[in-house]
């Protein structure tokens, strides 16, 4: 019975490694300038965690196989030299491993968050609210109008609580339900939540960032491939969470200008 159990462990461990080695569930093609580093980091993490996992399973199976049926008169033996040295060694190995992943990963992280965006990066604001995203562009004046939560009126499409009557900067702001960006142009995304926690996730962009109520979060990225991608909320935010999505349109500069004209006419 013990030998059967040991063999089962080996089979399950190997079977679960196969789809990962074969890239059965590989992420979709990366369309960002920073994504390669993130993909590298992920596969490195996966490789190290996978090797540790397999090694642990093999050792477990070996011990089950060898020691599951001790002779009736066998005595329990202590590990030679006690377990202390081994525990310290395990702490060091795992600690160094996790730290190394963190240090190497810091660059991938910094590319999106810590380094400042280029001076000519295009600012776009995204507001998450139950259960939709709305995107705001500053318009020809390059300035976002102030937001007034008390003026938010969804029935009148005033999702941001703008006050165009008194605020000149707000008059030319473009608020859209989809996010269009020009290809190969750096985007400075300014994120805030209207109500609860949400998340902005575009698989192809390798961007996944939570909205935290009360915090202004910002990140920057450059998309390199024209196409239409899905933006989904990946933080359970309530009843309509499953339907909280929008589309990211990566367009050529010409198409983007046309899109902006169309959106301006819709305001």
């Amino acid at each position, binding site marked *: 019975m013990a030998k059967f159990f040991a063999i089962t462990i080996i089979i399950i461990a190997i079977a679960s490694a196969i789809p990962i080695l074969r890239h059965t569930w590989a992420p979709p093609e990366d369309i960002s300038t920073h994504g390669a580093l993130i993909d590298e980091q992920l596969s490195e993490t996966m490789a190290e965690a996978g090797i540790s996992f397999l090694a642990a399973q093999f050792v477990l199976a070996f011990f089950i196989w060898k020691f599951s049926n001790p002779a009736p008169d066998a005595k329990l033996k202590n590990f030679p030299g006690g377990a202390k040295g081994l525990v310290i060694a395990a702490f060091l190995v795992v600690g160094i491993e996790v730290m190394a992943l963190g240090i190497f990963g810091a660059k991938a992280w910094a590319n999106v968050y810590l380094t400042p965006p280029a001076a000519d990066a295009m600012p776009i604001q995204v507001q998450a609210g139950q259960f939709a995203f709305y995107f705001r562009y500053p318009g020809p004046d390059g300035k976002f109008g102030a937001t007034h939560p008390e003026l938010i009126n969804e029935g009148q499409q005033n999702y941001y609580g703008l006050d165009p009557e008194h605020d000149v900067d707000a008059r030319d702001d473009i608020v859209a*339900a989809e996010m269009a960006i020009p290809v190969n142009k750096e985007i400075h995304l300014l994120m805030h939540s209207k109500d609860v926690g949400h998340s902005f996730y575009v698989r192809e962009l390798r961007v996944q960032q939570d909205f935290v109520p009360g915090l202004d979060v910002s990140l920057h990225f450059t998309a390199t491939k024209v196409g239409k991608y899905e933006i989904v909320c990946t933080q359970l935010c309530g009843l309509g969470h499953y339907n909280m*999505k929008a589309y990211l349109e990566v367009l050529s500069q010409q198409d983007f200008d046309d899109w902006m004209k169309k959106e301006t006419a819709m305001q």
Partner: protein
Amino acid sequence: MRRKPILIALLTLLAGSSLMFAGTVSGKVTYTGTPAHQKAIDMSKEPSCAKQHATPISTETVVTGANNALENVVVYISAGAPDEGQVPTQAITYTQKGCQYLPHVLPMHVNQEFEILNDDQTSHNIHPLPKVNIEWNKSQPPGSPPIKEKYDKAEFIEVKCNIHPWMHGYFAVLKTSHYDVSKEGGDFKLPNLPPGKYTLTAWHEKYGTQTADVTITGNETKDVNFTFKATAY
């Protein structure tokens, strides 16, 4: 045997007299000034709804027509109504279609049953926001049976959808069935009013209320017009 013709004659007379003294109030609702610009609605998040509109629909906070007509104004008898407490038995319907509420404003009698239908291929979550009635919000996946509800207090209730933030409408819960909603051209008509003194109220979701007194003495049509002052924002 001779009683029957008399009875018929009496009944005819009764029916005739009530018709004879049925007055009508009709008129137009208009605006002065510049009404607020209505933004087009981007439904790209819900493609099954977006494709139902050849051109994007706009918000319906202020709907205007030719010659300064103002639509979606509820005109009703707010004092003197002869039918207070007479709850109509037929249910009325409020439809969610193309991620839009049809009609935008649904008037109803207190305690009158109304049905909410989902004609879309997506889930809706209807969430009226009453202040004096009891609040609820109900999820309605596609293909669900109608939701049946009623309100027991008079109130204007804003309605929203928790899934599609742009969806917006109103329930007008009134103590009378003598109401109308101004249509294209701003026209409204309240027929079958017995003689009496009435207060007429016109309610608009953005521009507030106006009232007018009207007296019906017999079989006549009284003209009452309302003019709201529109604001650009």
